[in-house]
């Protein structure tokens, strides 16, 4: 399984906080971009929300680029630019 989390405005717009994907549906060395593409294909809404230029991605709780490899047991997160502080 690959765990996917959404936060803040993105969580609200997708109406989804978390979901689990079957990692066997991805290639062995799939990237976060491949997972994102899979999620975008779910609907026109998801396509739109997950195509924002400012979307941030974390793999296993670390900010990273979409080129980062992901596999079984990994935790992926997508979220808007952070606004703490």
């Amino acid at each position, binding site marked *: 399984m690959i765990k996917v*989390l959404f*936060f*803040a*405005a993105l969580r609200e717009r997708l109406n989804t906080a978390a979901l689990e994907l079957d990692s066997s549906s991805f290639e062995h060395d799939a990237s976060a971009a491949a997972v994102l593409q899979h999620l975008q294909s779910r609907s026109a809404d998801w396509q739109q929300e997950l195509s924002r230029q*400012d979307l941030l991605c*974390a793999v296993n*709780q*670390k*900010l990273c680029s979409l080129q980062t490899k992901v596999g079984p047991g990994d935790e992926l*997160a997508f*979220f*808007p*630019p*952070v*606004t*703490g*502080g």
Partner: protein
Amino acid sequence: MSISVLVQHEDFSMADEYAQLSRDSSCGAVVTFCGLVRELSISKLHSMTLEHYPGMTEQALLAIAEQAQQRWQLGAVRIIHRIGTLTPNEQIVFVGVASAHRAAAFEAAQFVMDYLKTQAPFWKKEHSSQGQHWVAAKTTDQQAARRWE
């Protein structure tokens, strides 16, 4: 060198934090930053909700404090960030740095705030007389963070 980060609903005490930071007898300089919930210019703010990414947030803050420690000679770095619902005038974030030298203390505190603003997974939602909306990220914060690269 002491590093500590906290993500909590509860308020914090500036007096207690300062007392802790000023204990190290080799550090002659203590710089603190406090961020507070402020009024909005266009509407009446009722409250603010702070969402975070449990687990990642703590790691991100710790990594920022560790980077500060590697860049400057510091005695202590302390970061506290609140989550949940906050009302106007409440404290949101505390950054405290103790060092032998004031330049290091000032720069490290600024560095921590600049990185926290752009890398720590917190999101603010404002609840005002005009409804609720997510706060937009500022390009000035991105620029401020970039100067440390």
